């Protein structure tokens, strides 16, 4: 049973809205959580401004355990926790939780990697001027790493679009869900093509936005 495009378009529009909701919400949440983890990771590493061996070891271990788990598996494994936190495991809201968890750890590494590339001399200069560790984080680490950080987050956003599509296949709603139920399962190639094209456009838009923003910050 092929879809009737006359009546199907509103479904596509709705699904695109759900995908955007998932991507934007998870981007916001995972950026906040990931940045905090990444900053902590950087600050507590050897020679860092808040050096703390155990915190660094535990965080690294945590990230290295979560990140290699394929997202589909994580999605299913987190279901009991998702039910506790969100109240349900079906729908867009329920998809946001596991995507945020998975993406936070990716963001944490992206943040840490960008912070490592900051010239340690600049951090030392701030210390010499009497900056506290929290002031260094707020006034040196974040602004100095912001340009490449935006590019890193753009990269994460593209993964989020991918994650949201995967989450869609297991009841998360959005374009992934439509592609799976109306396209793949009912052998309707036109649905798959349309959803994929929309996903590609979203990725292009995200990349363009990220590039523009970061080049504005980096002044080049």
């Amino acid at each position, binding site marked *: 049973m092929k879809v009737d495009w006359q009546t199907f378009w509103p479904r596509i529009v709705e699904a695109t809205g759900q995908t955007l909701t998932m991507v934007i919400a998870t981007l916001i949440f995972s950026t906040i959580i990931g940045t905090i983890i990444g900053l902590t990771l950087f600050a507590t590493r050897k020679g860092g401004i808040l050096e703390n061996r155990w915190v660094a070891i535990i965080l690294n271990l945590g990230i290295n355990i979560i990140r290699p788990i394929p997202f589909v598996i994580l999605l299913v494994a987190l279901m009991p926790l998702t039910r506790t936190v969100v109240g349900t495991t079906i729908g867009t809201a329920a998809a946001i939780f596991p995507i945020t968890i998975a993406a936070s750890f990716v963001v944490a590494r992206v943040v840490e990697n960008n912070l490592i590339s900051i*010239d340690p*001399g*600049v951090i*030392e*200069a*701030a*210390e*010499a*001027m*009497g*900056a*506290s560790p929290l*002031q260094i984080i707020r*006034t*040196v680490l974040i*602004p*100095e790493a*912001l340009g490449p950080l935006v590019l890193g987050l753009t990269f994460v956003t593209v993964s989020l679009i991918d994650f949201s599509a995967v989450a869609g296949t297991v009841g998360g709603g959005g374009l992934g869900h439509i592609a799976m139920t109306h396209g793949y399962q009912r052998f309707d190639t036109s649905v798959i093509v349309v959803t994929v094209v929309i996903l590609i456009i979203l990725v292009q838009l995200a990349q363009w936005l990220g590039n523009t923003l970061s080049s504005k*910050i980096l*002044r080049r």
Partner: protein
Amino acid sequence: MIEFRNVTKTFQTKGQAITAVEKVSLTVEAGDIFGIIGFSGAGKSTLLRLVNLLEKPTEGEVLINDKSLTDYTKKELRQQRRDIGMIFQNFNLFTSRTVAKNIAYPLELAGVAKAEIKHKVEELLRFVGLSDKAKHYPEQLSGGQKQRVGIARALATSPRILICDEATSALDPNTTADILQLIQKVNKELGITVLLITHEMQVIEAICNRVAVMEEGRVIESGTVFDTFTNPQHATTKRFISATEQDLPSAHLLEKWSGSQLYRLIFKGDKASDPLLSQATRKHQVDVNIIYGTVKELQQRFFGNLIVSFEGEEQKIQAVLQELRQAIEVKEVAIA
């Protein structure tokens, strides 16, 4: 003002202890431009960082105005650091901030009111001669301009001490001279005590009044720049001096003089301006041939170092030498 008391700093790396600074005792007086010179790896950078406690001493203590910074709490220490400005070889400016915002940074940390920051930044920009560059970003500046911003930023909190970590090592000779002049201006006009480290002899000669020579974590020689450089005791000190003024002409040129005896005459201070050599040679009717040498200014005093040969009767030459020895230093030069 700054006193190192038997300070040792040891780093632990991979189960191995590396002593960067070993039993250093030094006093920097208020108003000094004190230079620490040493080859790379001598421990001078670590020594400098002990002053504002970017590195903690393993043993001994560093006193600033008779107080050890290790006695303060973390919060008090940050307060104290505002009294010690620091500039760096690679400038370490914030790339995300304009020139004006870089200079404003330590004032923002100190919680100074916005209007006051604006006023102070303008004043500092004038002092370092960069008023027209306030809205530029660091990457739009030359090395010398970057260091000027670094100096302005270090001076923002009106410190009494300025520490300079190889501040001119990344600059070309002309710019180096400009920056050294600026550091001298900071010392003279603002009465700020300067402690600098360098591997360049010219820096010490140009602006320092006192110097310490470091090697393998130890201070091997220290004193006024004039005394240390006109009468170096240690081989390393001699090497630094010969880096700026070649002690002897090359062997190729010296060949010409094989067979004749050469002498080194060292004039210091007023002696350099007296016509001693001319008087003595004329009196004993001996000809003098100046082969090589320099006469230069060091700490507003003359310092001359000449290689000469004499022509005439041996007896008369000895008489000239005897006369000269009473006023200046005379050494026989061995030609290899």
